[in-house]
């Protein structure tokens, strides 16, 4: 059991400016939840609190059944800017978490090889991050997270720094991985299509102070309309049921953005 629970979470940073207000959100075991919201609404802060990088001012964040007190390999994070160690090769980057867990050398090699194969980076094991494209670097970051076999995956706009074509490929691959090997995932994005395509549920946040405005169930629609029978993202995005959900979320977000302009 590895759920994530935000229990009446509030957060204000120095100076007392309220960033998050009364966040209540449950991500069930093996569920994929995306949070969308306008820039600066505090969605990344939600993820950072689940990761143990930031802490709530009020309320609690629970992973499994225990309160988050520090970062740890049970909650692997994929960062927007990848955060690969530039002085380590692909293999060394993926391997560090396993070394920390004192996994024996032979098993480590096998698991790193599996992870490299999973993300399709065979042949680049000894390359340094700066020798790889942005998409390849983010694959390495995903492999670095997956190899730990974490209960929870926290992804902070992981495809935000990639070009449009690469992003589509990565989204398709993430869906493939998530279906193959389901995890509890909290996914932060400002891309509505991405959220609808990837997630079981989409939580919409208001502008600051961020609150959860609405939670949209995508999974039941996806199953009823058999989205998974289409392997290509553009085919799914053409479906009427997809367009309907996307438009609904867009409108909801747009009200927030319009409000921010006044």
């Amino acid at each position: 059991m590895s759920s994530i629970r935000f229990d009446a979470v509030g957060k204000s940073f120095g100076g007392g400016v309220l960033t998050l207000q009364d966040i209540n959100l449950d991500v069930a075991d093996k569920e994929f939840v995306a949070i969308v919201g306008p820039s600066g609404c505090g969605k990344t802060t939600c993820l950072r609190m689940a990761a143990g990088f930031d802490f709530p001012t009020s309320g609690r964040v629970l992973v499994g059944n225990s309160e988050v007190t520090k970062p740890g390999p049970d909650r692997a994070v994929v960062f927007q800017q990848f955060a690969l160690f530039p002085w380590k090769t692909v293999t060394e980057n993926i391997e560090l978490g396993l070394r920390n867990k004192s996994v024996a050398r032979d098993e480590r090699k096998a698991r790193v090889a599996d992870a490299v194969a999973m993300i399709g980076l065979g042949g680049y094991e000894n390359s340094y991050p700066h020798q790889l494209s942005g998409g390849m670097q983010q694959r390495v970051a995903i492999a670095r997270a997956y190899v730990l076999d974490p209960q929870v995956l926290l992804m902070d706009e992981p495809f935000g720094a990639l070009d449009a074509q690469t992003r589509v490929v990565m989204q398709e691959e993430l869906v493939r991985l998530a279906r193959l090997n389901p995890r509890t995932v909290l996914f932060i994005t400002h891309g509505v299509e991405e959220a609808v395509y990837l997630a079981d549920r989409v939580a919409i946040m208001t502008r600051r102070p961020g609150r959860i405005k609405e939670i949209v169930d995508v999974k039941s629609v996806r199953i009823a309309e058999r989205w998974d029978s289409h392997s290509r993202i553009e085919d799914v995005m053409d479906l009427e049921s997809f367009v309907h959900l996307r438009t609904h979320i867009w409108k909801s977000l747009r009200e927030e953005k319009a409000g921010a302009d006044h």
Partner: protein
Amino acid sequence: MTDVMDPARRLLLGACGLIGFFGLWAAISGSGLVAPTFLPGPLDVARRLVFLLTESFAGGTLLVHLWSSLQRFAAGYLLAAAVGVPLGLLMGRFRTLDDIVSPLFDGLRFIAPIAWVPFAALWFGTGFGGPVLIIFSGAFPPCLLNAYRGAKHVDPRYLEAAEMLGTPSGRIITEVLLPASVPSIIAGLRIGAGLGWQSLVGAELIVASTGVGYLMVQAQSAVSTTTVMVGMAAIGFIGVLIDVALRTIEARIHRRLGGA
């Protein structure tokens, strides 16, 4: 100022500077306006240098004195690096240690190495230990400060990534802080080498019984100004060699990190 530095142009300009300097020097010393002991000419100094390579002065040839100086330098400098770099990284990582050490360090580092001469001689003698302490006090601050600043300025994303991967605190120092701080550490080692070499020779002027500084003091007593100048030239030349060696290492490491 051109953005692209043409190496040939740089060499040419550097050579012009050197030729101009030696030309002016030779002209003044050869003009007959000053006594040869007041300002020996470059050729006299060169002749004296060749002489001192084979003939003993103040207890040894120039090479013997240089070797003695280099040994002291190596001991003091390596000690400064071995203590300064790890301590700087630890201070960059652990706030408590930083708070304990910083005020003391900030006070001590403004005491010039030469000010330690009386106590260096008293505590460690004038042969090896005293000069080693003096070079340590010259080389230590930049070694520590640059490692500390490097560790403080590590991109917090790397620290978060390491913590997220369950990296224990000690390993974060070796796996993240140290490699991320390498450019800063190398810069500190370069500055430390320069300051250390300077303070060593200064110290030998007073406390040693061998070494280039000692050679120069003896030469001064003997009014052999050419010998003093040979000592000065040797100090400058070895200083350049040390810096070139460290710069080469620095460039190699930068290339390996791919400018990241």
